[in-house]
């Protein structure tokens, strides 16, 4: 049988181990610190949190042309929807309430209708029924949907004043509280 180590021997060995861990670990942390700020994903356009919001230019229902890039400096909520999508119907009144209340503080809401899989007539009557006052964009070719890798309806992107996506909500309906907190957070930052 192997002789047992004394308490002192054990303690000595553990001290050695812990010192080695501390030295090697700190060394590794120093070596592997972020070299040239590779975390600045904000420059690359991609439809996810921390990345730059992919740009698009679409026509409104009323015919006016809206470009995302023109809205720099404002907090922008981009909501993809279709008239046949039940959770979209659910969350529209909440979006409308938040928009009416917070618009003057510097919030824009772009409701992108996925027209390539919806009908303009249906979309129009939807907007009338819910008395929506924010811009409704017509994505006739599905270009914006492609850029935002749309996988589910509704999908909502919260974009800060610098054009960086800060929160992504896929699916719904979102509660009014979720929308409000997401917008308030970005507004607070801007101040």
């Amino acid at each position, binding site marked *: *049988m*192997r002789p*047992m*180590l*004394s*308490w002192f021997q*054990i*303690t000595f060995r*553990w001290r050695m*181990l*812990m010192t080695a*861990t*501390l030295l090697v*670990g*700190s060394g*590794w*942390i*120093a*070596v*592997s*610190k*972020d*070299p040239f*700020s*590779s*975390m600045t*994903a904000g420059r*690359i*356009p*991609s439809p*996810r949190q*921390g*990345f730059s919001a992919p740009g698009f230019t679409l026509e409104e229902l009323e015919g006016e042309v809206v470009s995302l890039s023109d809205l720099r400096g404002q907090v922008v909520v981009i909501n993809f929807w279709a008239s046949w999508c039940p959770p979209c119907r659910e969350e529209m009144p909440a979006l409308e309430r938040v928009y009416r209340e917070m618009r003057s503080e510097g919030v824009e809401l772009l409701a992108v209708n996925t027209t390539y899989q919806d009908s303009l007539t249906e979309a129009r009557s939807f907007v009338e029924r819910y008395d929506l006052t924010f811009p409704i964009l017509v994505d006739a070719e599905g270009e914006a949907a492609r850029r935002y890798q749309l*996988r*589910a309806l509704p999908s909502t992107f919260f974009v800060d004043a610098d054009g960086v996506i800060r*929160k*992504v*909500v*896929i*699916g719904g*309906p*979102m*509660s*009014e*509280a*979720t929308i*409000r*907190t*997401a917008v*308030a*957070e970005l507004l607070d930052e801007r101040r």
Partner: protein
Amino acid sequence: MLPILQIGPLAIQLPGLLLLAGVWLGTNAVDRQAARLDLPIPTLQKLVLLALAAGVVGARLGYAARYLDVYLENPTGLISLQPAALSPSAGLLTGIIAGWIFGQRKQLPFWRTMDALSPGLAVFSVFLGISHMASGDAFGSPTSVPWAINLWGELRHPSQVYETLAAGLVLIAILHAGRMSTGTGATFLVWVALASFSRLFLEAFRGDSLLLPGRIRIAQVVALAVLLAAEAMSHRQAAASSRNSSEATPM
């Protein structure tokens, strides 16, 4: 990347489903280890369930606490099924506290219980990695290594693959250690040490780290501290058992 699995009209969010699978297989592993360590399996199952439920509730309350006025006006928002409105750190904390209180009240022996939970934690970590593969979360930093993957607009380290492989190795080690476990807490401490070591090492290849001033990655500092704490605890146990059993069974 396969974030949503489309089966006919059914759109299944795969990352979430994988986490559920991880919880399920993880609890199975806990059951087996609890039987080996003579712990009451139903009590442990309740512990896991309670900790998870408390974690979810705590995560939502923690999020709502930051925007109290909004949630006071719209209290129904508290029960909305939005994973975006959760605070992970608050959830983790409430989960641990709830589990700890429950364990105290049921008089579960602390270290023996932690040993029984370890294989479950190790199994769940593997599924967390696979879930990151499905969602593209926890992504890697830009690189030009030959095995780089194209993700989020750049060639990146496949950090999700690293993470899953490491979690797999840790799982093998924990299943092995678990078989020899006598319920002293050694298995748990080995898991903590291995998991924090792998995070300390692999965080270097992440492209989404939170940084401290000087571009130091926060997760690495925390992982190193946890690793040292696990070593210190192991030492205390080793030293105590050597004092107790100077002539009894060798370790």
